[in-house]
């Protein structure tokens, strides 16, 4: 059922990052089995899947936290090994983890440059501040001042800081793990705008999400994982039911049953009102 959809939506250009047959086992548990994934420059690929589908494992393989057991990773036409977060960084694969990993007590500049401060003997705060502003301007980030501790920023602003930080190393591919999970409506819209700007700058974006609405709002293609395996790649305008079915594994599932029930009860109510 999903095969034709997958065939219809191959990557539009040569992929900058592609995975072939990547598997990862944790003891007896096969977290990923023969997973393929392509991301092109200037493309947003969403990875969706139910709990335990292997989304986070895939992120960790790409960001160098875990090593894949088998399979190949090709980056910019070269086969590479991503053995550590530093490797990923050196290649130009940046990851924004779900918990953002910011230091609340440090200000925006200090967080952006944490671990790679600009030095001229001592820390060069002025240069760092200027580059912080340039970076935040590029992202049209709405942060009034960079000299406040991150603790006083809103969730969306923190997400922006985390994304800006990942851009400092001039990456080619950026991976966002559940970027909108903890955000409100307006902040979510802000982050989605940010993702579109990243795409427009020619970055390949991989976005992990639970939220189908957000996925459909920005993704060019949607890759579905189910129980650690590929379960189809869809165009962003594919019907939600179809994608959900691929996530859960059948057209008759809890989600569709619930939707049907709601539809029927609504129809029943309407009939009553008409009477």
């Amino acid at each position, binding site marked *: 059922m999903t095969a034709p959809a997958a065939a219809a939506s191959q990557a539009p250009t040569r992929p900058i990052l592609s995975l072939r047959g990547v598997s990862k086992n944790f003891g007896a548990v096969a977290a990923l089995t023969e997973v393929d994934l392509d991301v092109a420059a200037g493309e947003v690929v969403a990875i969706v899947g139910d709990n335990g589908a292997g989304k986070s494992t895939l992120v960790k393989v790409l960001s160098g936290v875990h090593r894949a057991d088998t399979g190949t990773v090709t980056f910019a036409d070269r086969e590479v090994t991503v053995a550590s977060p530093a490797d990923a960084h050196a290649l130009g694969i940046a990851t924004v983890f779900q918990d953002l*990993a*910011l230091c609340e007590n440090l200000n925006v500049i*200090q967080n952006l440059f944490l671990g790679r401060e600009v030095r001229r003997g001592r820390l060069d705060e*002025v240069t760092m*501040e200027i580059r912080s502003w340039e970076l935040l301007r590029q992202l049209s980030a709405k942060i*009034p001042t960079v000299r406040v501790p991150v603790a*006083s920023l809103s969730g969306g602003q923190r997400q922006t800081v985390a994304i800006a930080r990942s851009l400092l190393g001039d990456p080619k591919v950026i991976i966002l793990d559940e970027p909108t999970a903890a955000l409100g409506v307006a902040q979510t819209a802000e982050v989605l705008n940010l993702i579109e700007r990243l795409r427009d700058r020619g970055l390949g974006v991989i976005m992990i999400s639970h939220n189908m609405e957000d996925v459909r709002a920005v993704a060019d293609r949607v890759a579905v994982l189910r129980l650690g395996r590929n379960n189809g790649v869809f165009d962003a305008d594919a019907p939600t039911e179809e994608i959900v079915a691929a996530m859960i594994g059948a057209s008759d599932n809890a989600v569709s049953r619930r939707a049907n029930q709601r539809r029927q009860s609504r129809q029943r109510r309407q009939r009553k009102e008409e009477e």
Partner: protein
Amino acid sequence: MADVREAAAAPLDLLDERLRRGEGLKAALAGIWGRVRSGDLGALPIVLGLVVIWTVFQSLNSVFLSSANLVNLLMESASVGIIALGVVCVLLVGQIDLSVGSVSGLSAALTAVTFVKHGWPMPLAMAAALAAGAAIGFVYAQMVTRLGVPSFVATLAGLLSFLGIQLWLLGDTGAINIPFDSGLVHFAQLAFLPEWLSYVLVVVAAGWLFATGYGLARTRRAAGLSARSTTLLVARSVTVLLGLGFAVWYLNRARGVGWLFVSFVVLVLILNYALTRTGWGRSVFAVGGNAEAARRAGINVRRVYTSVFVLCSTFAALGGMIAAARLAAANQSTGAGDVNLNAIAAAVIGGTSLFGGRGSAFAALLGILVIQSISNGLTLLDLDSSFRFIITGLVLALAVMLDSVARRSRVAHGRAA
């Protein structure tokens, strides 16, 4: 039209229309007032506390604020103050060292034994004691980072063990006198700045403050960022010049400013520079704020912990030597009793958070002045140590409560907790 031009000329970091802008002395004062109201109190409570403590003791005994007594107070504060510097570092990464008192006692005993009994030259004896302190810190760091022992427990074990070694080193007599003619004792008891030099240092300090501030302001303006106005910088330097000048003049009416206290202040300034202007300092704050985030940012967290524990024990060893030199003897009570808790209390009263990531080197200086003032004042009133413990305890409780309230206010006003 005017608004547009103004916005275009605004510095890069003040472009956001939500920011309130203001320049000069008045705006700076308003900014400080706004920060205080939102609970970002800085050093204000400690300074107010000192004023209250000094007023009370002065009204009870008019000797308290005399030049002679203040000279004495400053000299006495150096040893525990130096220990508190190390405690600040450990607290900044969210750890604790409960053994600073024992380590300082051990270091005093070690210095005395090698210098007096074995006839080592003084520099060698001191270096050996400092090295022992550094080694102790290194062992703590390994226990904490490699074996996962909580620093509370590791240093509690150290407290007992090193106290034992101190007693064993001192032997049956329990005390070793350090000759008065040794350089260390002279330095800690009798070395004072010549009057002219003390004033020169005040001018140098004020001038340096202005020069660095002006240099930074010029770089920032050249880069299109907002900067402190020159008026403000001049005002700040003149305030420091007059304040320090008056203090030095007052102290010079008695014995003057001791080299020991000047050295302590220099250590505070060096540590402040290291914490705020170097990559090491930045990583200390980062580890204290969020160790996992620091690790993912590529900071070697284990190395940061190690550096901090080593620094803390080394400062403790130095403080112990100074304490022995002040007394011209290393005995069983050097570093015992309230030294441990006074050092930790000084760091906390000075505004260092027990939870890591918040504090400064000046906390040790301000905190120890509070503690030493209480101790000194009560001694003048002929009240014994029971009162000293009670009142120091109350002040510590007050300081922590004030910090908690201020923290809540900071959170409510959207500042860093």
